[in-house]
């Protein structure tokens, strides 16, 4: 990586870290010290870096946004419109800091759902083997920064053969302008466990701030996780997120992620099918307008045989917005009989909207089934004609098809109240007169 043009910013950030919370655990201190060391050795990526060629974050690296401080003034009634009635367990983080009073925990004792520091002593050994172990920060400055500032974190440990019936809602709310927050999540699904996790980034103020989040998900043999991720930050915000998923034997990971907010957002989703017969389905929807930029980079890494991955990513881009999708699929030499499919479908709603989509297949095994396809375009005239022949006006036909384009991804979400909320968002953002 090149010499950092933003060294001052990084130095400032790290100085601000002088009031770092002290941790009793040596391994956690070491992890953070290591991350700090990695931060000082890396520079912010520029468009000269292949992985960042479409996404210019130079504005962001000039912003003097210091790490957020805990904000306690928020009341339940300020945010209860964001709650999901189906979710009995809710963890609320305000600007990255855990907020006990706004959270609601109704889990039985054997289930660990809570804030990391409350369990770091009692569950030290399992945490040590997962925290910071899946989301590597050697070559990722944002993950390194997040790890350096690691304090609060949503923590879920689902015990062996336990099915959590109701979804768990992790709500990350941004309220302070011009700060940087470092949300963090860790989900450990033990053998044969099953859980639905909603990871949501929302805001109460349309101000500028930076969110730098890291999520780690580790599923043991036969475990299952349904991961719904919703990014609806302020339209002025910068959202940089990394999610790393490690899949053990015959585990199943389902991801549905939505990028709706932020001025600039980047979501890296890395899934490693580390053992045989692991499965993942990865669906994404980007819905942006005006001058938004939303970049999704996914990497699905088939390491062992008999793995399955299905991916569908869609972008609806209006105004002068710019969507980026880079979908890498690696099939390593031993990953025989891998079955993988990827589809990237993109809809441009204006002449100034822009999409860059890049399927990237790296296949080193010979007995594999890999299908992929990418389309960029406008609505299909045959589909419009069909609807008009049923009496719908041109505008109504276009509106319905645009809505449907996005709603297809939303329809994969199994939580009725959330699905309805999101359908409404898609409806509001796809209808013209």
């Amino acid at each position: 990586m090149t010499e950092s043009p933003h060294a001052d910013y990084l130095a400032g950030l790290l100085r601000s870290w002088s009031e770092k919370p002290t941790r009793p655990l040596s391994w956690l201190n070491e992890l953070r010290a290591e991350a700090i060391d990695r931060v000082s050795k890396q520079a912010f990526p520029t468009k000269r870096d292949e992985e960042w060629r479409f996404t210019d974050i130079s504005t962001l690296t000039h912003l003097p946004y210091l790490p957020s401080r805990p904000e306690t003034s928020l009341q339940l009634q300020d945010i209860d419109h964001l709650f999901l009635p189906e979710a009995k367990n809710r963890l609320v983080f305000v600007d990255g800091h855990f907020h006990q009073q706004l959270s609601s925990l109704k889990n039985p004792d054997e289930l660990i759902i809570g804030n990391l520091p409350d369990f770091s002593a009692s569950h030290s050994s399992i945490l040590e083997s997962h925290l910071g172990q899946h989301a590597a920060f050697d070559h990722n400055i944002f993950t390194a920064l997040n790890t350096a500032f690691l304090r609060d974190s949503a923590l879920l440990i689902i015990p062996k053969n336990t099915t959590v019936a109701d979804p768990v809602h992790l709500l990350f709310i941004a309220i302070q302008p011009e700060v940087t927050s470092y949300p963090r999540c860790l989900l450990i699904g033990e053998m044969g466990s099953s859980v639905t996790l909603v990871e949501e980034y929302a805001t109460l103020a349309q101000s500028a701030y930076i969110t730098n989040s890291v999520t780690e998900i580790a599923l043991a043999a036969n475990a299952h996780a349904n991961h719904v991720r919703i990014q609806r930050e302020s339209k002025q915000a910068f959202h940089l997120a990394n999610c790393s998923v490690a899949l053990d034997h015959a585990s199943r990971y389902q991801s549905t992620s939505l990028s709706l907010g932020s001025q600039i957002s980047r979501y890296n989703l890395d899934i490693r099918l580390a053992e045989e017969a692991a499965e993942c389905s990865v669906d994404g929807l980007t819905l942006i307008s005006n001058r938004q930029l939303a970049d999704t980079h996914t990497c699905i890494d088939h390491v062992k045989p008999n793995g399955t991955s299905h991916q569908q990513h869609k972008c609806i881009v209006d105004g002068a917005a710019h969507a980026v999708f880079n979908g890498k699929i690696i099939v390593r030499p031993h990953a025989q009989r891998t079955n993988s499919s990827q589809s990237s479908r993109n809809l441009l709603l204006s002449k100034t909207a822009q999409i860059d989509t890049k399927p990237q297949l790296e296949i080193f095994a010979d007995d594999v089934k890999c299908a992929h396809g990418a389309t960029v375009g406008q609505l299909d005239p045959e589909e419009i004609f069909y609807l008009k022949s049923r009496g719908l006006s041109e505008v109504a036909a276009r509106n319905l098809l645009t809505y449907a384009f996005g709603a297809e991804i939303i329809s994969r979400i199994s939580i009725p109240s959330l699905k309805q909320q999101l359908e409404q968002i898609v409806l509001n953002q796809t209808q013209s007169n």
Partner: protein
Amino acid sequence: MINPNSTPILTVRGLRASINGTEILKGIDLTVKSGEIHAIMGLNGSGKSTFAKVLAGHSAYEVTGGSIQFEDKDLLELPPEERARAGLFLAFQYPIEIPGVANTQFLRLAYNTVQAQRGKEELDPLEFDDFVREKMKLLEMKPDFLDRSVNEGFSGGEKKRNEILQMALLEPKLSILDETDSGLDIDALKIVAQGVNQITNKDNATILVTHYQRLLDYIVPDYVHVMQAGRIVITGGKELALELETRGYDWINENNSSIAGVLA
């Protein structure tokens, strides 16, 4: 049924149409009166599906000559949605799929749009649900049909039944069924035909576009027209379809003038 006192619904005169500069329809004349069922037969490429699409107003085809009168309206002046609202319905050969939109939402939207244009009352979701379930019985459709996305994952037969369900809901004056029999097994064909037969009455009319005679065993036409190279070359009664079935389309080429003489 043919009724000497019935009024024309559709009057096509000298219709010519082309796509990308290639002329497909080369002068079609056809009159369809209320109560009548017409079959348009022909080989692939004869222009019969093009004729169906031109009637519905598909924008890919340019009408280069002739006229189409639909009741008291000049059909060529109307965009597709206004033709639909005026009472023209095309059942598609390949209905489109709309993942993400429940069939019931789509059906109600189409129904209410057309109702509103006709100055009739729209139905709310509950009222519509009762209404559509009644119509679905005609076509022996399962209730989960309503909750599934429009045509997504539907079998060929289910898609065609969904088309006829729309026909039943929209109550058109003129229905054009484009190759509705293609891809159907005999059971599905019977159900679809039975549905169509229940919808047809003395005030509406139907045009069946088909390649095969098979459909006409179940929906009996009053007239059979054979298209060739963009023209209707012969018109006869239902026995013409049987004749074609046994003798094949070549028989027309060989005997064109003499048959036309017999049938005239």
